[in-house]
């Protein structure tokens, strides 16, 4: 039996991404270590994403609270609004929405940058200059996305909870202390830990897919555009798949 062409392409692409990922672990833990470039990438990827992540986090918390209020009122559990907002934000919405926005901003940027470097022979020039381009370009970016996304998610969650506080106060009056006490009483270690762990996986996926797409960009401006676009699409899909797997695994270990 012969596989259809699209299936062959799928498995071929999956194999190529797997090899590319395996190469990361081969290169990441051997000298020479590119600390300076890694620091620069953390700044570019983490610090420069902060305003966007903060804004979306704030709106996310505010809108979620405003949307939930009518239903909560209907069931007479309006007082539980901080509990439900904090659980939703910290466990699911915060990590996933932040990761998707991160994929849109950072994943596409990495795909376009490396794609452009590939078609203008900058990657070849690096190799000729005694540099391992995979280590210099890919390892540093993937390490930076893996470490920066959890930080951004924590910040986004905090800002989102503040947005939720303002949302609660639009049609009622709740003190900051009371709101935060309810949030702290609701959130357990088992809510926070799996959520943080999955953000490392999201960050790794965004960086790896962006680098893979850029590194294998086809010639010409169309190829660069396609790399950037497919980096976002594929990493978004992978974020949902990782989320699904992590939920199943944490369920098995009794974290849900």
């Amino acid at each position, binding site marked *: 039996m012969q596989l259809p062409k699209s299936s062959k392409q799928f498995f071929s692409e999956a194999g190529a991404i797997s090899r590319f990922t395996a190469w990361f672990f081969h290169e990441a833990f051997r000298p020479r270590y590119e600390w300076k470039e890694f620091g620069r990438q953390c700044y570019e990827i983490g610090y420069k994403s902060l305003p966007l992540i903060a804004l979306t986090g704030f709106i996310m918390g505010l809108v979620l609270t405003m949307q939930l209020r009518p239903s909560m009122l209907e069931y007479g559990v309006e007082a539980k609004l901080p509990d439900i907002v904090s659980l939703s934000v910290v466990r699911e919405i915060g990590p996933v929405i932040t990761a998707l926005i991160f994929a849109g901003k950072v994943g596409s940027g990495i795909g376009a940058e490396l794609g452009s470097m590939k078609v*203008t022979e*900058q990657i*070849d*020039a690096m190799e*000729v200059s*005694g*540099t391992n381009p995979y280590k210099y370009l890919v390892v540093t970016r993937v390490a930076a996305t893996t470490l920066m996304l959890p930080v951004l998610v924590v910040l986004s969650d905090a800002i989102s909870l503040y947005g939720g506080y303002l949302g609660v106060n639009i049609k009622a009056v709740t003190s900051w202390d009371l709101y935060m006490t309810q949030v702290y009483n609701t959130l357990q270690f088992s809510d926070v830990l799996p959520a943080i762990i999955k953000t490392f996986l999201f960050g790794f996926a965004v960086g790896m897919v962006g680098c893979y797409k850029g590194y294998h960009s086809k010639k010409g401006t169309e190829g660069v555009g396609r790399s950037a676009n497919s980096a976002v699409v594929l990493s978004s899909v992978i974020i949902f798949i990782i989320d699904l797997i992590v939920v199943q695994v944490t369920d098995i270990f009794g974290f849900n």
Partner: protein
Amino acid sequence: MEQQLTYPNENVISIRGLKKYFGENKVLDGFDLDLGKKENLVVLGRSGSGKSVLIKCIIGLLAPDSGQIEVFGKDILSLDHQALDEMRIRIGFLFQSNALYDSMTVRENLEFPMRRHSIDLNEEDARQRIEEVLDNVGLSHTIDMMPSELSGGMMKRIALARTMILKPDIILYDEPTAGLDPVTGKEIITLIMDIRQKYNTAAIIISHDMKCVKATADKIILLQNGKNYKEGNYASFIGSDDPYVQQFFE
């Protein structure tokens, strides 16, 4: 310190039976080449005939399917990564697209190969060398500019300066005058000749530009179907009555 050439004969590069296939496409199919010390060799051929593939095999960016490439008497294909990097210090490569790093200034572009190859130079010597190569290409004032602020001709000259920063013994030029106006093209040709004069470099030049071929070539090899079709000096090509050869010189 001046680098000493240590190889058994006068050829700095010797290639025998080089084959490189991309699927069914036999790009190089038993190609031979000898490049002498201080010699300029032009490789001619139609687009897609494997000229760029040839020089990428020499510098180790592409692995040939079979054949032998000796540079300074050492088989490039048997070198480990570190030895290949050391060899690359002695081979400059001018990319067709210039390949300047967009995110770095001209100074950082020129520093990059020195820093990465761990060349033993103090800050002052490194600064002097950058100023020297920039002065050679007449672009000292661009040192703090970004590549995006430079014209096509300026980018080519900066790329040439970067190629020269490690003072290589061999330079591989991939279509050095492609996409440039005739005046700028002539300036690049003059620079190529000046570099040979000043640094005693040998060079392989990939070019379609007949002005460049005429001005720079000590020897020409015409490639067809991945093999050597004709070899000789400029006069022998001009005087050839072979219709395929004549197409290039019309």
